[in-house]
């Protein structure tokens, strides 16, 4: 009886979540689909974004994201490997590092935005630029990526490390050939989580990569991210709603494409290195 109630409740919860999600997506699709066209994707914005397209904004968004990833992936993987493979789980240094990372992962993005504005734009003199935005995003993404990668590596059975050591296989080989590929679904999940957080980011970017909706010519130029554009259209531009929904739809599609690509890449890597249990 209790079991049955529990089952019903679980199904209900899942249904509610699915319903809300479906509603959200269909709202965006219905409102935004009419705006979506080739012109919208390839033209410059006009009339404060109410008309024209979002081409420079898409380019800025991708540039910010790619730059952030170039910074985040080596740093994040390196730190995670250090935490998972080269330290003792119980040592104070490691526990402190972990605590700091967890706190950072939960810090509101506006705090990162203000930090980025003061440090990257101001102190380092990078000004409003894609580079400042990317660096700020990188700070936000790092804790998420490090902790998920570390968890992924920690979940790799210890037996393989022993087997590798006993065969005189170097740590580097073992990491590249066995541990990282095996942990790659977790790493991918972490990467996607952090990309998700990054693409949704407004507060951290409006003060760092800025508001300029022109096509950026270099990483030193200010560039408006999609999320900032959506925020501006729906908050500051009277009559910007349609374009905001259109941009939101583009953002969703972009996130879906990034997700699929990342999963495919991870799958490919996994398949190449590792034969999964079928």
């Amino acid at each position, binding site marked *: 009886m209790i079991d049955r109630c529990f089952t019903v409740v679980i199904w209900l919860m899942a249904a509610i979540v699915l319903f809300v999600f479906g509603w959200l997506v269909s709202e965006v699709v219905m409102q935004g689909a009419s705006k979506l066209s080739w012109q919208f994707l390839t033209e410059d914005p006009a009339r404060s974004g109410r008309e024209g397209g979002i081409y420079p904004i898409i380019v800025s968004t991708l540039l910010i994201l790619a730059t952030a990833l170039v910074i985040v992936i080596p740093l994040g993987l390196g730190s995670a490997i250090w935490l998972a493979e080269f330290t003792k789980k119980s040592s104070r240094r490691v526990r402190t590092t972990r605590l700091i990372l967890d706190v950072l992962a939960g810090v509101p993005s506006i705090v990162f935005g203000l930090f980025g504005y003061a440090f990257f734009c101001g102190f380092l003199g990078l000004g409003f630029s894609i580079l400042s935005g990317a660096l700020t995003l990188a700070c936000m993404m790092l804790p998420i990526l490090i902790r998920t990668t570390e968890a992924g590596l920690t979940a790799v059975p210890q037996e393989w490390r*022993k087997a590798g*050591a*006993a065969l*005189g296989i170097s740590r580097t080989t073992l990491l590249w050939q066995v541990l990282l590929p095996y942990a790659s679904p977790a790493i991918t999940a972490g990467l996607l989580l952090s990309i998700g957080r990054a693409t949704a980011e407004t507060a951290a970017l409006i003060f760092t990569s800025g508001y300029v909706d022109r096509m950026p010519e270099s990483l030193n130029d200010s560039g408006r991210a999609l999320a900032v554009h959506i925020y501006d259209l729906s908050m500051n531009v009277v009559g910007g709603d349609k374009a905001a929904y259109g941009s939101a739809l583009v953002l969703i599609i972009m996130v879906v494409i990034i997700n699929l690509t990342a999963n495919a890449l991870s799958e490919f890597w996994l398949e190449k290195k590792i034969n*999964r249990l079928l």
Partner: protein
Amino acid sequence: MSNGQIKGSTYTLGSIEQGEPCCDATPHFSINNLSVSYDQETVLSNVSLEVYKGCITALIGPSGCGKSSFLAALNRLTDMILGAKVSGDITFEGQNIFDGSVDVRTLRTKIGMIFQKPNPFPLSIRKNLELPLKEHGVRNKAEVESKIFDALQSVGLWDEVKNRLSSSALSLSGGQQQRLCIARALILEPSVLLMDEPCSALDPISSGIVEEMIQRLAGRYTIIIVTHNLAQARRIANYAAFFWMTERVGKLIEFGQCRPLFESPQHSLTAAYVSGEKG
């Protein structure tokens, strides 16, 4: 001794099979006053014994008495445990393995190790065997192929897996996985095999197959095996070492030829343990 290279060897596992197996009283390992501690907590204290060439030495005793730590010290696997400290001397083929000039990775190619739980890498059967070979510089395709064949032959796995070398090692049964692990150790042509309860995680039939294989390997390899199965130790071992834990520190109580140790133990603890009264 250890010049960082695997010395080119002309023998194949197949040819060993035809050689004269021998167990003679030449020491392969001489262990002197070996102690192991983790985070200042001693788990094994002052063990001295000799391991003889080509013989099977069984390490027996209750859980937690330091047998596995003893085994791990022999190929310096203790190095990878943070906080582990080893003192004393282990002389292997005439050289102290703790000597600064010893290359651990080369050392470990000469001393293979098999674990309690079969631990093939989550790679294909072929890659499991290729990985250690390539790591130690064997890249010639024909050479790799013939070594894979020999290794799988010597553990009796070739016929079972020859048509599925590229499928996952994890799709094998437990016993097959353990034999693959032994093949993976043998492919580097070691002279010693350390086995940490290699049969205890297997079903009785697989266990029997692996045990029979160990007996076939004896003579060509020096084998040190940790086992809780006294009957197994009695069946296969030439020498036996009995470990016991006093005040949470493992000690070697008695070491000698297998049969005398079981039939007329010198120490009362050994007598109690082998008769099943203690442990």
